[in-house]
């Protein structure tokens, strides 16, 4: 028996998705068994400026064996402990969606239930105060989580902010050093096998014909293979997620230095702020249905932390996804597969999880359709979970005014989300499921942060002596605050660990 590895894998497109997959394949397969070829046209710019990630990206880097400090130096990277949401349910609101949990069970009762019971008895604790990375975010601190599982300082995870273009370039160098073959070129024709409609070859502008066993479409929104050649349908989600444009710009450093992505609600969308080492990436995601490009540009320029570096760039997109990301011998990754706005920093994750699924279900020859079926099932779960979570932010936006906000506050929600909100409102039960983002801690942060107020709580919480419970909570809050106070500042930590500023002692970034 052999595993019948496909001999020739062709990746079309060299964005983050393309290079993440290319690096994974280069790492996983021996070059004598499998050739991986990546075709990219030099003239198409990568969508995405400052990129905010989830902790899962560390698993990916670890799988490749990437040195963290080097990678951060070369991608202008900083750390991330949370997303900070400002002005969402109410003007002046601020809450964190952290990489960590809120509190711990008290006598077996979930912490959220204890918190709700405390509220009912007139003790209004800020739930962020019970979450280590939220407090550290607020205080502009950072250090690596402790390895001591018993310590409060181990109760969080972290991710990065980096320059997505530099990350792709980093992965490209990494892959090419290990034998990946990259071709600069544009596809002018796709040849399908007459007998089964599988892709047989790509014809490049140079006239070269590239044959392959498996084709990965990382060509972005156009979907040169999955869409243009194989005509796989697109499912549109713009009614739920009406934002379809963004103005993006970089500014000089200025303002806070938290290890935090900031998402601030604006009149017809929201603004991101992603602090990198040498600049701040920012942008305004908006809906062209509810504002004009000119007005949106003004809004962005009125809300900068420092002088803009050049003119804002307009990015167009639409929320939705390909009905099947794997069809015949073609697998779409990244934007060719689907798009969800970066409100929850999911874009790199979506590429990464697709790579993970593909590696776990890597087809032999011929391609067994049951692998595609499972892949599509898993990808479908991922997209739907993130979609619902994003919709929640918009829908539960309190009494924010403006046409966009009125639309999302009153629209019909997917049934999968209605059920989750219903039981949370009743008694603070948070969703819990096996596959896909997000964890119960994430739901807790956003449901409470968006001011969805449970009318009751789990009577199990009443089983705890009230004074014992309150004392336990106050102690935890104080212990977190005391520990965070002794952490180094985020900016100092980054400077010490992985400064991107060229200096005689540290190697500067390599430009490709």
């Amino acid at each position, binding site marked *: *028996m*052999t*595993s*019948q*590895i496909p001999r020739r894998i062709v990746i079309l497109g060299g964005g983050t998705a393309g290079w993440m997959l290319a690096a994974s394949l280069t790492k*996983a*397969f*021996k070059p004598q*068994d499998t050739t991986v070829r990546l075709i990219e046209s030099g003239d198409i710019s990568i969508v995405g400026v400052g990129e905010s990630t989830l902790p899962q990206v560390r698993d990916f880097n670890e*799988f490749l064996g990437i040195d963290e400090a080097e990678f951060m130096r070369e991608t202008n990277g900083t750390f991330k402990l949370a997303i900070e949401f400002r002005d969402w349910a109410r003007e002046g*609101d*601020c*809450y964190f969606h952290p990489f960590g949990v809120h509190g711990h069970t008290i006598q*077996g009762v979930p912490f959220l239930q204890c918190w*709700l*019971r405390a*509220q*009912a008895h*007139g003790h*209004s604790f*800020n*739930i*962020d105060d019970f979450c280590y990375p939220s407090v550290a975010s607020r205080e502009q601190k950072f250090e690596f989580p402790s390895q001591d599982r018993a310590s409060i300082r181990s109760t969080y995870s972290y991710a990065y902010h980096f320059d997505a273009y530099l990350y792709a370039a980093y992965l490209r160098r990494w892959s090419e050093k290990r034998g990946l073959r990259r071709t600069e070129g544009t596809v002018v024709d796709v040849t399908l096998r007459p007998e089964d409609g599988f892709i047989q070859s790509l014809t490049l502008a140079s006239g070269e014909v590239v044959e392959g066993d498996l084709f990965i479409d990382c060509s972005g929104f156009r979907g040169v293979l999955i869409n243009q050649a194989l005509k796989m349908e697109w499912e549109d989600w713009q009614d739920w997620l009406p934002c379809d444009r963004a103005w993006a710009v970089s500014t000089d450093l200025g303002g806070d230095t938290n290890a935090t992505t900031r998402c601030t609600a604006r009149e017809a969308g929201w603004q991101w702020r992603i602090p990198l080492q040498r600049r701040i990436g920012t942008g305004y995601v908006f809906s062209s249905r509810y504002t004009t490009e000119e007005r949106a540009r003004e809004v962005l320029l009125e809300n900068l932390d420092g002088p803009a570096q050049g003119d804002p760039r307009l990015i167009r997109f639409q929320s939705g996804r390909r009905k099947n990301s794997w069809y015949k011998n073609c697998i779409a990754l990244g934007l060719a597969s689907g798009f969800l706005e970066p409100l929850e920093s999911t874009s790199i994750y979506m590429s990464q999880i697709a790579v993970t699924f593909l*590696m*776990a*279900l*890597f087809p*032999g020859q011929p391609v*067994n359709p*049951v*692998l595609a*079926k*499972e892949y599509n099932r898993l990808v479908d779960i991922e997209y739907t979970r993130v979609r619902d979570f994003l919709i929640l932010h918009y829908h539960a936006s309190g009494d924010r005014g403006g046409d966009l906000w009125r639309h999302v506050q009153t629209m019909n929600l997917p049934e999968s989300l209605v*059920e989750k909100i*219903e*039981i949370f409102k*009743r*008694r*603070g*039960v948070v969703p819990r*499921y*096996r*596959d896909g983002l997000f964890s119960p801690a994430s739901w807790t942060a956003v449901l*409470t*942060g968006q*001011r969805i*107020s*449970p*009318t*009751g*709580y*789990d*009577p*199990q*919480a*009443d*089983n*705890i*002596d009230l004074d014992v419970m309150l004392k336990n909570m106050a102690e935890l809050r104080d212990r977190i605050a005391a520990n965070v106070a002794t952490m180094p500042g985020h900016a100092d930590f980054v400077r010490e660990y992985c400064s991107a500023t060229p200096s005689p002692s540290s190697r500067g970034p390599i430009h490709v």
Partner: protein
Amino acid sequence: MSDINSARGSSSETGRIRKIVIVGRDEALWLAAGTLKTSFSHTGLEIVAVELPSLVRSVDVTPTLPTQSVFHAKLGIQEAAMMAVTQGTYSLGQRFANFANARPAFMQGYGSCGTAINLVPFHNYWIKARGLGLKAEFEDFSLNAVAARQGRFFRPDAETDKLAECDYAYHLSAGAYCQVLKQVALKRGVHHVQAARLCEVSHAPENGHITTISLSNGETMSGDLFIDATGADSLLLGGALEIGFESWQHWFPCDRLLSASAPALAPLPSFSQVSAFRSGWVAQFPLRDRTGIRQVYSSAEMDERAALESAVVVTSTRFGTDSVVTPYAAGRRQVPWSGNCVAIGEAAAVFDPIDNVGIQIIMTGLAHLTSLIPLDNDMTAERKVYNLNVVSTFERIRDYQMCRYKLNRRFDQPLWDHCRDMTVPDLLAHKIELFAARGHLVEYNDETFIDYDWWSMFLGHGLIPKAYDPLADQTPDGEIIQRFQGILGAIKNRIMWMKPMEAYLPS
């Protein structure tokens, strides 16, 4: 930051849940009473256990899944004391014999087999190596299975954790175990009422909720929430509320359970034995003072006398005179929770006896119910979530059990031919198809059986994948052989230090 000032334990004081009435018997009744009382002892919630006459017979045995020790810890049940009074033994796994004409029996341990190599699950390498002529069985890489085969027992510790994930289950004498559970519940302050039978159930006209039940002792009992723990009779949910029964008999064609006792085995095996025969299967559960026998068969194929004769032949032993046959039908009530009535255990769903899931079914319901005890009389939201999650959990367990029948290789026997040819539910069909094609395990929400259970079960029953994960080819063969030898050697070393089970039982 937040304005959740209106949150209260109950959203409307008048409709508040103050009293839970549990009606039933045996394990379901006492587990429900003990579990709920433990979680709500200081809340003022009144818990009444209405005990109907026990249906447990002297021959009955209660085999559990490995998770049971977790529930016992929550209930405060001390293992040693419980084992002493229940004549209990520990179980490291189940040995399945005669499920295939041409394959030897296999031991399925309650634990993992081998460890992942370069992030690829172990079974992929085993499949590859087997194709290249490896003779070692999959179970040879399971510490649980090898220990069980060699008549040893062990409790997982830091050392065994390095080798494998290991667990153990119990074989308990049913009557004595019920007494243990009953004492726990009563000690915790559950209000206990006994009645010969349930006479009448009254409903609220506006919503059909149960308002009171009247008992044969003349007592009338009111309550806010009623728990049906009456077993397969489902007196409240199926009877009073007329919730229909969805049969699973096309997947589980057996409909009779013969229970018997055979002499105790010496030395005591640390596993249970399940042997298929023409019309069903027989299981032997070692207890200290006897061996519990359960034979499951189809009444369409044999009568009681023939069943008894067959069981004696298959197990090659003699039975006591108290053998008894109980009819059953696998399936579930359309919903486990209707109105203000939650059915727990067999009142909600009757599972085939294969894989010993009976107690697990009770605990699954109770775990969900504990975190969803309704706040007031309008329990729509809780009911919806409970029904969704519990039904899904039931179906995943059912699907796992179904594989034992579906994957049989007993050819030319009507019951087994039917099972091999039957159409299984879509989610399971997809799971089987993908494993058969590539050794990849599909896992859904609400699975009770985890990855290593499925891997061992599939491979044990002979579902050998046609291909394996291509990433397994990226580890050099020499390294794989070394790893295999390392695991086999470590298991051998470990087992040398293990004692027979008798050494672990209270003297």
